[in-house]
Each structure stands twice: as structure tokens, then as C-alpha cells.
């Protein structure tokens, strides 16, 4: 889709210390977050990063716990790169990109212990809440990872626990909110011509020399990381990327999550 000429142009601008859309290296595109966008979901959020748009819906279902954690609810994160969102996405079961996206978002929520899964136990060993987080990509203009992570945090914050009558879920009636103990936010740092940048758009993604996604939480510690793409990072570059991610995470949590 993107020619070598375009790619060279993107690299050249970055060499001058700027980006094609005028942003600073450590500046996100405009972020728009709308919660409660899906009537049938127990929680939902739409997030736009520039033209990138992702909808996350949370469904609460009843199911069995895992045998090794009989007193805990279950978190399931799934991502669909719908063929609508990009000419490069195809119908069919999730490919390696969709699986990686879902698993990195999953680890951000799981490892940060943002959800107290023990509170989602109904009958130990038998019946627990399953929290399905479904990431649905509407338009891919780059940095799906961060858009999905932010939308997941917002959708979980929006999530209400439905009323139960026996085994039946009374959809539309709720007993309370799903409590979030911390807000995990992913920040993806990419390298282009040895410069580090945040929130790459689709064109910038085509020229990255490696990406690293770092999920930070409210107390500034890290809870998940993932290097992806082709290209390596020197240790100092990773330390720098961590600093950037902590700063961006704090900004986003403050501005959009009331922290």
C-alpha cells in the first residue's frame, strides 16, 4: 500500500525532528473516548486515536472456573481485526497479529491485577463470572495496541455486574460496578531512524525498526511488555522507552480516567 518513496519521505521528515502530521515525537494523536456505546454490553467504550478507531465491549457470562483457580472468575480477551478496518485484514479466525494484540491487552489487565477475580466467584469450583473483553477494530490507522488497551480500560471501568436469579442473568439489571483497582495503560514506542516515537500512525508503522509496548499502572510500575516487529533495541533505548511510557500512561490516566 505504501510505496518506497512514501517511506523515504516519512523517514526524512523524522530526521528533521518532526512528524508528517506536525506532532512531537512523544505526543499522542488526539484521543477521543466514549463510554457506554453498546446497549447490549455490560460495559463498552469507543476509542479514537486520530483516525484509528476501536470499540471494546465487555460481556459478563456465567461459566466454570479453571480447575487450578476454583475461587476466581475468568478473564477472556479476544480481538477481531475486522476486514472492514483495513485492506490488509482478512475474514477468518484471528491471525498472529490479532492474537498478539489480544494477549498483550490481556496481560496488561491480568498482571496488573486491575480486576479482583476472587470477587467474581459465585460458587467456588462450580460457577464464576466470565468477563469477556472483545476488541473490535473499526479503522486501523496505526497503533491498535494502545488504542485497544485504552479502550479496554475504559470499557472495564464502564462495566456493571448484572443481577443473577439462580443461573439466569437478568440482562439490564445490575448489582454494582466491576471495580478496577488500577488503570493499566499501554504505550507503544517505536524506533524510526534511531529516533523513539510514540503512537505511530499507519504510515509511520510501515517504516518502524521495532516496536516496544510497555504497560504501566497507576503506581508507575510496569505490568507487561512486548517487543514486536523486526528490529532490536539497545538496553538504554528500552530504559528510555520505559520513561516515556510511564509519563504517557500518567498523562492518559489523569486526563481520561480521573486519576
Amino acid at each position, binding site marked *: 500500500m505504501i510505496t518506497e518513496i512514501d517511506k523515504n519521505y516519512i523517514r526524512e521528515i523524522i530526521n528533521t525532528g518532526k512528524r508528517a502530521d506536525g506532532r512531537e515525537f512523544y505526543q499522542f494523536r488526539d484521543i477521543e473516548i466514549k463510554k457506554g*456505546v453498546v*446497549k*447490549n454490553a455490560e460495559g463498552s467504550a469507543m476509542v479514537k486515536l486520530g483516525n484509528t478507531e476501536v*470499540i471494546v*465491549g465487555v*460481556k459478563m457470562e456465567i461459566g466454570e472456573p479453571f480447575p487450578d483457580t476454583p475461587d476466581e472468575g475468568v478473564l477472556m480477551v479476544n480481538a477481531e481485526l475486522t*476486514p*472492514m478496518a483495513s485492506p490488509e485484514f482478512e475474514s477468518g479466525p484471528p491471525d498472529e497479529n490479532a492474537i498478539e494484540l489480544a494477549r498483550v491487552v490481556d496481560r496488561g489487565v491480568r498482571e496488573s491485577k486491575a480486576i479482583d477475580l476472587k470477587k467474581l466467584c459465585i460458587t467456588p469450583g462450580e460457577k464464576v463470572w466470565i468477563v469477556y473483553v*472483545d476488541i473490535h477494530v473499526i*479503522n486501523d490507522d496505526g497503533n491498535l495496541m494502545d488504542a485497544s488497551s485504552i479502550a479496554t480500560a475504559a470499557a472495564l471501568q464502564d462495566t456493571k455486574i448484572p443481577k443473577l436469579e439462580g443461573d439466569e442473568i437478568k440482562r439490564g439489571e445490575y448489582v454494582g460496578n466491576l471495580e478496577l483497582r488500577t488503570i493499566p495503560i499501554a504505550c507503544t514506542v517505536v524506533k524510526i531512524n534511531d529516533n523513539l516515537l510514540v503512537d505511530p500512525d499507519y504510515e509511520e508503522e510501515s517504516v518502524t525498526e521495532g516496536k516496544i509496548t510497555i504497560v504501566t499502572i497507576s503506581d508507575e510500575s510496569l505490568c507487561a511488555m512486548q517487543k514486536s516487529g523486526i528490529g532490536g533495541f539497545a538496553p538504554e533505548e528500552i530504559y528510555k522507552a520505559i520513561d516515556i511510557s510511564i509519563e504517557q500512561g500518567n498523562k492518559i490516566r489523569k486526563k481520561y480516567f480521573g486519576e
Partner: protein
Amino acid sequence: MRMSEEKRFDGRKFDEMRELEAKANLVERANGSGYFRFGDTRAIAAVYGPVETHPRHLADPRRAFIKFRYNMAPFSTKDRNRPGPSRRSVEISKVIKEALSAVIEREEFPRASIEIYAEILDANASTRCAALNAASIALAHAGIPMRDLVASCSVGKVNGQIVLDVAGEEDTEGEVDLPIGYVPSENKIHLLQMDGIITKEEFKKALELAIKGCKVVYQKQVEALKEIFKTYENEEVGE
């Protein structure tokens, strides 16, 4: 509120539709896109094409190959909808694809493909109608030559009464569901499915009501397209 002799569960009149909303240009990466809403039922559609046909043996030397996928987002239904195609979604994709194929000037793009994807974001009945409406807008927005738009809505029989645009309890308790896809300029039905017991006379009444509804939908579609093309013109003028 119960359904009475004059009003429905949600207070609408028998021939009254839910609030409608139509938009174009929502998916920047696509060649065209559209959105349609019946009350709480929301669909978004995007069009890619004409593009090369893959795999190649599907290419038709006389006309464009039309690909259509109807898909419900997992969170769009009361109980989570398992991702991936179901028998229901495959059937719906087929009938919508056929309705759209009939209005697209397919002969203009021999060997090529036109790919159309519709996603249901929220489902409260008439999702196939919303998908077809959004897809029609998306095709027009993408500049794909078409003889006309397809407008779609459904009628039902609830407690023996023929009603327009079933929703909520009407959907689960109704006796008949009849979605149609209609092309106003040709007065032709291009999508029609029916479930449930109905007499010939009732059917006639239902179809007439559905056509009335489709004409309202059609107005909404046209307005959304006018809106977006007006924006484009202004942008050009502004340049």
C-alpha cells in the same frame, strides 16, 4: 407497557418505525462506508474495491465478483455472540449479497472484486436490514456505480397485528418476521425472508407496510449521502 389495540410494547403506532439514523464516511481506510441505525440496532459497513480477485479462479471475466460478510460483534447481543461465522450469519450474508449484486453495475468491473463488510455493533432486531442499509450507503459513498440503493426494513405479526419495524419483545414474542429489501425506483423486492404462519391476505398487507417503511429508510439513506457529498463539494470549493 403492554401491547394494546392501538399501541405497541414500546408505545409506537403499528406503522411507526423506531428512530432512524443514517451516515456515510466512518471508516477512513475503506473506499466507502456507511452506518444505519434502527433505534438500538446499529450497523456499520465498509466497501473495498474494485480490487483484484483472490483467489484468482473466483474472478468472473464478465462482471465483478461481489463479496459480502455480515458479522455480529461478540458484544452486540444479550448473550455474548461467539466470534466466527454461524449458519445464520452465512445465510444472511448470502441473501444480502444477492440483493446488492442485483443493483451494482457489475459489468463495469470484469474480473475485479467488490468487497463489502458489515458489522452489527448493537442488536435489537432487524440487524440484517440495518446491515443492508449501511452497505448500500457504503457502496454509493465508494462511488461504485449502482442502478439504485436498496432500502430495507422488516414487518412482523404480533398478537395478530401487522406492525412495522419489530423490536424488543415483539421480536421474541412475535408470530411472524418478514424482512424485505426494496428498490424504490424499480418497485422491486430484492430481499425477502419470512418465518411464521401468515395468510395470503395478511402477507399482502404486511408487504405493503414494509414497502412504506423502506421508502422512509430510503429517504434517510439519500439524505446521508447528500450530506457527505455536500461536505466534499464544500471542501473542494474551499481549496
